[in-house]
């Protein structure tokens, strides 16, 4: 098991930049998520760590050893493909034993090891079936078996749940996380599904347009987004953005939003011009006392909570409130925001302004 350090790695395909200089560290035993929309460079990053693509520049360290230009066979990394890529001309047993055969392991040892892995994954009964007729979940388990059988230093997984139907995904995600906890192996996992990333990951890297937007724990990324992209991409419904014109100074604790002073975490930098007031739906409350008024447009009932869409002087926003409150479309209500959870952004760059809330996270990201 190992630590992986990615340092200033860059990948060009001709004139196209797939990954701009990126650096992050994956600690030993971490379940690490590479999250982003399709085409953002997350899969390319994963493939560079595995050795299926060579970086144009930069270094990759596996357990302190520089490996960025080595062939995949010399890296001791396992890879689970989105479409599983089980060898179609071999049965399950041969598929799982294939990596061991390449190492020249004696037959008896291979057999024992394959049985052991099949036991862990619960696929002992299908060991001698061809891979063609297997269900999606069993294919997934065989692919995992092929990955864990040789006990590699790290696992790469490229949207391994992407090919499964929704119902089964949930179950497999749990199984995968349990397997990781049991083996304690460093795992790098690519996904475009923010829920999956939040649910399974110890750490998340959010990528967009070949650039790393933020790097941190799920809580940090959710509560303290570094950019508007992250704030928008993570969470469902995503963070509300209320654009406003204004000026804030270092040390100020309020901003002027449509003529009202709204409290924010103490700012640690000043800014002026097009700004954005960012607040998650669960940090928006109804308060008759508040002078900040908004009109109810619609309400979505979700059981314990409801999502209310409101028209405020600064644009549309959503609030997650108790399902028992009754609200009628067209009604006007007062709004309050949880001041400690507000993030201000610079609209032109999308960057979050430093404040007492996010200073620590932004300094290390």
């Amino acid at each position: 098991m190992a630590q992986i350090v990615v340092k200033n790695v860059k990948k060009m395909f001709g004139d196209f930049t797939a990954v701009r200089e990126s650096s992050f560290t994956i600690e030993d035993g971490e379940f690490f998520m590479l999250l982003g929309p399709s085409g953002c460079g997350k899969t390319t990053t994963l493939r560079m760590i595995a050795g299926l693509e060579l970086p144009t520049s930069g270094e990759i360290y596996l357990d302190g050893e520089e490996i960025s230009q080595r062939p995949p066979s010399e890296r001791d990394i396992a890879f689970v493909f989105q479409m599983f890529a089980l060898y179609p001309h071999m049965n399950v047993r041969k598929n799982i034993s294939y990596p061991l055969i390449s190492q020249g392991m004696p037959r008896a040892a291979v057999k024992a090891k394959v049985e052991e892995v099949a036991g862990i994954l619960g696929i002992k009964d299908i060991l001698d079936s061809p891979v063609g007729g297997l269900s999606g979940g069993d294919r997934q388990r065989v692919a995992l078996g092929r990955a864990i059988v040789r006990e590699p230093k790290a696992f790469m997984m490229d949207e391994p749940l992407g090919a499964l139907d929704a119902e089964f995904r949930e179950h497999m995600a749990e199984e995968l996380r349990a397997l990781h906890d049991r083996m304690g192996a460093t795992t790098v996992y690519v996904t475009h599904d923010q829920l999956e990333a939040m649910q399974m990951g110890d750490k998340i890297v959010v990528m967009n347009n070949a650039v790393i937007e933020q790097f941190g724990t799920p809580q940090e990324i959710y509560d303290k987004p570094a950019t508007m992209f992250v704030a928008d991409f993570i969470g469902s419904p995503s963070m509300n953005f209320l654009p406003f014109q204004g000026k804030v100074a270092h040390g100020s604790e309020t901003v002027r939003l449509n003529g009202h002073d709204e409290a924010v975490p103490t700012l640690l930098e000043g800014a002026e011009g097009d700004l954005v007031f960012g607040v998650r739906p669960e940090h928006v409350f109804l308060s008759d006392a508040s002078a900040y008024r908004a009109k109810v447009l619609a309400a979505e009932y979700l059981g314990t909570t409801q999502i209310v869409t409101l028209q405020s002087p600064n644009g549309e926003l959503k609030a997650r409130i108790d399902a028992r409150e009754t609200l009628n479309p067209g009604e006007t209500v007062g709004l309050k925001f949880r001041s400690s959870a507000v993030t201000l952004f610079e609209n032109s760059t999308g960057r979050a302004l430093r404040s007492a809330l996010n200073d620590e996270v932004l300094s290390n990201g």
Partner: protein
Amino acid sequence: MSSFSVTEPSNRSKWIAGFLVITYALITMIPLVWILLTGFKSPADAISYPPKVVFDPTLEGYVNLFTTRTRQTQEFLEANPPQNWADEIVRQYDMVIVGPSKFGERFMNSVIIGFGSTFLSIFLGTLAAYAFSRFKVPLKDDLLFFILSTRMMPPVAVAIPIFLMFRNLGLSDTHLGMILLYTGVNISLAVWLLKGFIDEIPREYEEAALIDGYTRFQAFYKVVLPQAATGIASTAIFCLIFAWNEYAFAVLLTSANAQTAPPFIPTIIGIGGLDWPAVAAGATIFLIPVMIFTILMRKHLLRGITFGAVRK
């Protein structure tokens, strides 16, 4: 299946389709049946008009194909009674068998050159197709076009340059020369067809093998080749059929040593008048290897020529 099913053909359309297929098959088989029957006719029956469909079968054509014979005097024939059934057949023309004909040798030449060039075309074609399919080859499109362009003119157009080249290189009338020539013609077909098949194989299979600790070449022959078996088989059939049937270059470039069966079979006509049964016998035997090869590969061929349409 309900009678309103859209995907299942109705009984009537099945009957019509079956009738058309069988009719077409019969029409295409008539020349083959004709050749097969003529091989068992006597020379007189073979040229009779109207053609005889019912006749006394004889092995005369096959005996004439495989032997050389001389006419002998009555005294000699009486002094040497026939040794076997073949002898008896030729005695009706006052002839005796003096030895085997060249047909066996020519047939073996066809086997060596046909299968040799097919093997070489497939071997080189698979490697080239893999490289074109997977690697960034500089000027890839131009190279592929250039390879195909060798097929854009009739072979006869290059016959004289090739004849001169072969003479200077000492390749005229050699097995090696003919194998190289047919490989040269077939390789464009092989590269293009195989590239199509290999493009269809997802790269993830090789990548999985690379990750599993195999080299690029091991991944190629342990994972890609078994997947490409269908394509290789159908390409091999096309290559073999071309090399097996090729006539123009064989006439021009081979004579005593490496002559193949196609230029040899017509020469039988000249041996003792128009011996059509012997020619037909030669053609029948000549068909057999390709038929066997095609039947063996039939399953692959069917899937192969519809490649891309359905993935198994």
